[in-house]
């Protein structure tokens, strides 16, 4: 992260440094000695004489030397005279005229000037990392000046292969640095605009550089917390997809980066996938993530790791069968049979399907056995899953004897799970439900009430359980009171199951007319829902 940069680790060591220009080279020792004594003019003139340089070139070299020695203030003193000139119109127009024919000599002259400014920019950045950061603004302004000048030299964008490599290198650096400087200066909106400016214009960047900027922009879009509005491109878009907000833009950039990784244009960078994983799982788009994982070249992830991630992706959107197939591979005895996350996920999926419950018992037991050391805290979860799988298995057992044995074991597991995680609402609910199934209604009632307390009545299944237990105890009036309380606490689109329960309670009390009234209300609700539901009301279908 650029924000975390430590102050310059400029080489302080006085290992032999050499100036070279025009086919000659010279040691820096003499010049450094002159600089240290404060004889700047002498240092400059000795450089000019020995290397046949003009004074601008000599000052650029002196600036670089001081920058390398970590003396950013001194570097700035050497650079100031020529760097201010890039923004002054007369200089830049001569610069542009110079470059109009793009021959290598004029390109070199342009590069020297721009390099001087760039060195100033970096010096300002370094200085401000050491002290306060007002100078970032100035650095960013100078950096913008560089890009403006380059833009005037190459109004059609930088032509491929016609640019001297050193000039291109400097331009690429300035392009990459500008948004970083603006962020450091706290100018976030300008940084957004700068990112788009550098990414949507042809600067002839190499793949790596372009990839780094795209990633940095995606990260900034995702995490800065700013909404800068969509890029407005007008005619430029030319039928191409234009993201309509920052989140779409960030996801687009990350997907583009992943494609470059798949095509081998840029190196594998795990952080790209992790940013995508974070954001796509938050918007429940894990299938898109699965596609990315499937496209990755072998060797990027260990296969079990990939299977486990894919299983999480499938499970995240309820594709439990596909998730189980992957988990069976990864938990195979020859792979990683004791991976706790995979074991728990497998056990959870199995606990919801009576056909898989017996298989789930095995995974849950392995999870319990492996919850050791730093993973000790997961023992309770393992026991809970074991209890749930055993309970589910009991439902399809062939004999009464077997069923009651499994049910007892299930209760024992849930009980010990609770001793690991007292107050875990899920375990409390499940204990209530299991006791109810075993017709131990007093114990069931205790847990059901505790669940309502602990969740503040926020979960409808808790109310339903309580009402069902009361009704099993023939306490119909109380059950109805509970159902009414639950209806009060529930939004109307979720009231379906409660209304059905209420109607049944009326029937049980031989009050058919009231039951009909309740059913009528339920029907009206269904119709109202059908009328008002657009395609977006995914979350609020009436549940019946």
């Amino acid at each position, binding site marked *: 992260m650029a924000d975390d940069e430590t102050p310059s680790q400029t080489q302080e060591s006085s290992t032999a440094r050499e100036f070279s220009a025009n086919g000659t080279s010279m040691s820096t020792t003499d010049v450094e000695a002159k600089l240290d004594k404060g004889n700047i003019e002498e240092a400059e003139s000795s450089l000019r004489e020995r290397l046949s340089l003009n004074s601008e070139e000599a000052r650029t070299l002196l600036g670089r030397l001081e920058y390398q020695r970590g003396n950013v203030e001194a570097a700035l003193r050497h650079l100031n005279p020529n760097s201010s000139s890039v923004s002054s119109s007369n200089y830049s127009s001569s610069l542009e005229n110079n470059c109009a024919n793009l021959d290598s000599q004029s390109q070199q002259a342009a590069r020297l000037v721009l390099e001087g400014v760039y060195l100033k920019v970096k010096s300002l950045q370094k200085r401000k990392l050491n002290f306060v950061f007002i100078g970032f603004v100035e650095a960013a302004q100078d950096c913008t000046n560089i890009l403006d000048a380059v833009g005037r030299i190459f109004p059609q964008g930088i032509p491929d292969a016609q640019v001297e490599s050193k000039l291109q290198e400097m331009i690429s650096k300035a392009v990459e640095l500008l948004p970083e400087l603006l962020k450091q200066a706290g100018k976030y909106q300008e940084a957004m605009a700068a990112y788009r400016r550098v990414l949507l214009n042809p600067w002839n960047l190499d793949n790596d550089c372009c990839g780094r900027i795209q990633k940095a922009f995606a990260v900034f879009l995702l995490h800065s917390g700013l909404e800068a509005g969509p890029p407005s491109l007008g005619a430029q878009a030319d039928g191409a997809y*234009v993201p309509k907000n920052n989140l779409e833009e960030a996801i687009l950039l990350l*997907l583009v980066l992943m494609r470059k990784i798949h095509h081998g244009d840029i190196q594998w960078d795990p952080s790209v996938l992790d940013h995508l994983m974070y954001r796509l799982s938050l918007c429940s788009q894990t299938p898109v993530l699965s596609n990315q994982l499937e496209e990755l070249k072998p060797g990027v992830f260990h296969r079990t790791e990939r299977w486990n991630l894919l299983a999480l992706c499938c499970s995240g959107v309820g594709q439990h069968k596909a998730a189980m197939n992957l988990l069976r591979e990864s938990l195979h005895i020859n792979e990683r049979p004791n991976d706790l996350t995979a074991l728990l996920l497998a056990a959870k999926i199995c606990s919801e399907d009576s056909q898989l419950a017996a298989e789930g018992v095995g995974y849950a037991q392995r999870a319990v056995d492996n919850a050791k050391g730093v993973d000790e*805290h997961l023992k309770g979860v393992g026991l809970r899953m074991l209890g749930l799988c055993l309970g589910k298995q009991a439902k399809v057992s062939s004999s009464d004897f077997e069923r009651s044995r499994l049910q007892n074991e299930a209760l024992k597991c849930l009980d010990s799970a609770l001793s690991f995680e007292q107050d875990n609402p899920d375990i409390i609910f499940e204990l209530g439900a299991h006791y109810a199934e075993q017709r131990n209604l007093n114990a069931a009632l205790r847990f059901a009430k505790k669940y309502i307390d602990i969740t503040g009545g926020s979960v409808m299944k808790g109310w339903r359980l309580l009402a069902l237990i009361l009704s099993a105890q023939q306490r119909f009036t109380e059950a109805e009171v509970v159902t009414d309380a639950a209806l009060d606490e529930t939004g109307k689109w979720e009231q379906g199951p409660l209304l059905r329960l209420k109607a049944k309670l009326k029937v049980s009390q031989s009050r058919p007319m009231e039951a009909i009234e309740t059913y009528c209300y339920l029907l009206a609700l269904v119709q109202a829902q059908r009328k008002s539901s657009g395609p977006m009301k995914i979350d609020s279908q009436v549940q019946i």
Partner: protein
Amino acid sequence: MSSSNPGSPSATATSSSSASSFSSKAHSCIQALSSILSTVPSSVSSSSSLLHDPTVSSQISTLLRDPDSGSGDNNLCRWLYDTFHSPDPELKLVVLRFVPIVAGIYLSRIALRKSLAGFEAILLALYAHETTARDGQPISVNVPDLTQPSIYHEAKSSVKTQATELNLAVISPTLEPHGTVRSSRRARIVGVALELYYSKISQMPVSSKLEFCEFCDIWATGIQNKPSSSSSSKQKTILLPWELLQPSLRILGHCLLGAHKSKKLYEAASMATKSLYERSLHDIDAKAILATSSLLRLEKMALDPKLNVDHTEIDMSLAL
């Protein structure tokens, strides 16, 4: 206060400019607050200074944490409620600044069966504001399909027959109006308040985000570390349904990977993320496991100097 507030309400009411009407709103707001807090520094004279003054926010935070706070007749809750209804957007920010602590304390106290009507009024006001602003509509994004060209890439094999297949991702579903906090909608109402907080997070002071991380950690673990004593007290575990977890993880992402420069905030966010990761394992919540584990890896990578080479550094050669 009188010296810093020369304009009487009647004098400012005649002013037509909205800026000065905002400033008079801010003045009356600050005046109302000074009757609730023990001291309001004289430097606090505008909504912006109200948002950023550490003594004011720490006093408000302390009062909100009081065991008897949050009831229907609580002065401070009333003040936050009124302030949020001010037309001055900056005053709204002042209220949003306390969303982490209001939501945090509120959710932690549900099981205690205390009156929390004051907190609920604030949260409902935020929810109603968002419902109106969005006209109840869901917020969704398209996950782009790279077979179609975009501003950032060219599609090499343009399959013309294939209609653009965009995956629509609902970030925040439809909002129904709520006049009271029904317990089944509680998580959603608090979640929407957190969404609103996130939408202004770049303007929130670090202290507010630190409070969020603190409560996130408590929600995840049920353990409250008291800074004053070495003991920590176990509270009741709070259900973390997706509607609460999703906005929380967005806020944490900002705290952990955003462009701010507070080391303390990075550390607090890192701790909260670790707790939420463990919690997601306990809940075996696949999406939460993916989101939190990727955040933890990203944090690690952000701290690794080998992965953070500065490519804009100047070439070390001294050749022209």
